[in-house]
């Protein structure tokens, strides 16, 4: 079992990538359109003697199982979809405050409420601004293909360990359900108990030979301690902003109009760019891959360019990332928005029409 080419559904590829990344525990609750993740893991589990998969009684419970398992030193993941992600917000706030590395995937569906099981990007704010209480951040990846789901999931476990921070893979029901060809990365050999202890000297895995016991908590009852905790978190976040930004530009160098889009909608936007270029229109795309940390610098550079006329933000919601785009552009250029909701994905032609109306 090593590097391998396969034709897989997004959700199953996500599960396989996590197994190959040496995931030791998965806790989740069924919810459409991401239930294939736990189904795949239950089927594959016997091949991985050091891996444990458990269907929790709810998403509130699964995120807290993740909290416990990851604090104990495991490489741990949960996945869910929008309403379930809402239920996890308290737990995520705890995990972020306690500096616990873990991986969460939200395969978004249309909201608000029970909504629809169709794809959506309605949880950008919840994911990027903090759906839970207090000032915290998750590193948020927005893959736009099954291959990227695999790559970012595979790397997420080590990245989480590096920053002592939960990583969120924010995709949607279309990416979760569609089948694409993927190159699966080489499996990481399972760590021994000893290796796990060495890798995570902070984990609550029994005092062992340590001279001091470990405590995992998010409680800081004294104001000055709590402020210190917040300052430490913010310092860490500044460092992450310096090191972990990822984005893609597409035919953007000479563009006069820049589309901003992420995840599923960025694929249609690429097509819109191609059509525009055929028509001689200088349109390009900036695609944030990390939604937080946000690719501020590259958007700032485009906003400064004299030949750039305006930005068009395209999302599958009523306008969420546009706020972050506007905060960077800061009045230098107009920033327009086009979005569809309920699972409807704008067509390339539709997007182009919107852009032409602003030209």
């Amino acid at each position, binding site marked *: 079992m090593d590097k391998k080419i396969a034709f897989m559904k997004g959700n199953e590829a996500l599960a396989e990538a996590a197994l190959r990344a040496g995931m030791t*525990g998965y806790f989740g609750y069924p919810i459409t359109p991401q239930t294939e993740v736990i189904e795949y893991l239950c089927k594959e589990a016997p091949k991985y003697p050091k891996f444990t998969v458990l269907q929790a009684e709810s998403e509130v419970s699964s995120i*807290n199982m993740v909290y*416990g398992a990851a604090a104990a030193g495991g490489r741990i993941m949960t996945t869910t979809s929008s309403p379930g992600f809402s239920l996890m917000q308290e737990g995520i706030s705890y995990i972020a405050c306690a500096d616990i590395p873990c991986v969460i995937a939200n395969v978004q569906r249309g909201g608000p409420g029970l909504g629809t099981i169709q794809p959506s990007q309605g949880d950008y704010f919840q994911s990027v601004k903090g759906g839970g209480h207090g000032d915290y951040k998750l590193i948020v990846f927005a893959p736009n293909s099954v291959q990227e789901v695999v790559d970012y999931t595979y790397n997420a476990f080590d990245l989480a360990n590096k920053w002592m921070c939960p990583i969120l893979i924010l995709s949607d029901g279309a990416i979760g359900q569609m089948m694409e060809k993927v190159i699966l990365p080489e499996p990481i050999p399972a760590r021994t108990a000893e290796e796990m202890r060495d890798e995570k000297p902070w984990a*609550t*895995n029994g005092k062992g030979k340590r001279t001091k016991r470990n405590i995992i908590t998010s409680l800081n009852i004294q104001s000055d301690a709590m402020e210190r905790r917040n300052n430490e978190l913010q310092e860490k976040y500044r460092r992450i902003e310096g090191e972990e930004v990822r984005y893609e530009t597409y035919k953007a160098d000479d563009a006069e109009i820049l589309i901003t889009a992420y995840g599923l909608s960025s694929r249609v936007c690429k097509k819109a760019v191609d059509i525009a270029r055929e028509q001689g229109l200088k349109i390009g795309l900036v695609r944030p891959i990390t939604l937080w940390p946000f690719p501020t610098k590259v958007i700032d550079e485009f906003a400064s360019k004299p030949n750039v006329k305006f930005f068009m933000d395209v999302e599958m919601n009523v306008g969420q990332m546009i706020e972050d785009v506007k905060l960077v552009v800061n009045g230098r250029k107009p920033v327009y928005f086009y979005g569809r909701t309920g699972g409807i994905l704008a067509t390339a032609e539709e997007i182009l029409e919107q852009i032409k109306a602003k030209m």
Partner: protein
Amino acid sequence: MKEGYTLVYKRPDTLLKTRMHYCPGCFHSILHKLIMEVVEEMGIQNDVIGVSPVGCSVFAYDYMDVDFQEAAHGRACAVATGIKRTLPNHPVFTYQGDGDLAAIGLAETMHACNRGEKFSIFFVNNAIYGMTGGQMAPTTLEGQITTTSPYGRDPKNVGYPMKMAEMVSQLPGVAYCERVCLNNPANVRKAKKSIRKCFEIQAQNLGTTFLEVVSNCPTNWRLSPIKTLDFVENNMLKYYPLGVKKDVTATEEK
């Protein structure tokens, strides 16, 4: 120790020499000590992982010198499930109050017990929310006055107090379930034996071990520590009878 003396009692090394924040007369400190004595006697101090709840014992990790994780309110059993499934060879325990275990955490408690998660649950039932200042708990007695039952708990409106030990003992996943009390030296000694039994059965991987500890709350019961003993004896233990509710090892011995 001075020559010629015999050691009959000592503070366990597993208990940190920190002044506890508990109110005078509260049983929490006794239970902390008992658990740490058992941990020391069984020699599992370097293996065990504790989970503290939200409630008065949220700071349990300030006193017990073992690895500890603080869980969100009600989620100690979910957190412990995550820990134990990651480290199946380590003893794991939760330490939870009645609001935490029986109100907000009821689903996590019942499902962990139903799955037979191999950890020990120490459930402190003092029939009231302590840390938030004396609100009605699922275990508040009929007629008992709390800040959210100011005219006494009325079962017609809010139901009867929940007998958690009896409830979880019905679940096949539970290997051992007992209700103990700390209201007199004999009961304290019994409780210690039961704590040890929990850890022993946990080590045998037989299922969940659940110990309900009937406790007190001088501050929120608005009684002197001494008078809480009467209330425990005359009120709590009448509704919450002590004893072993389930013991799969006893069955096996038959």
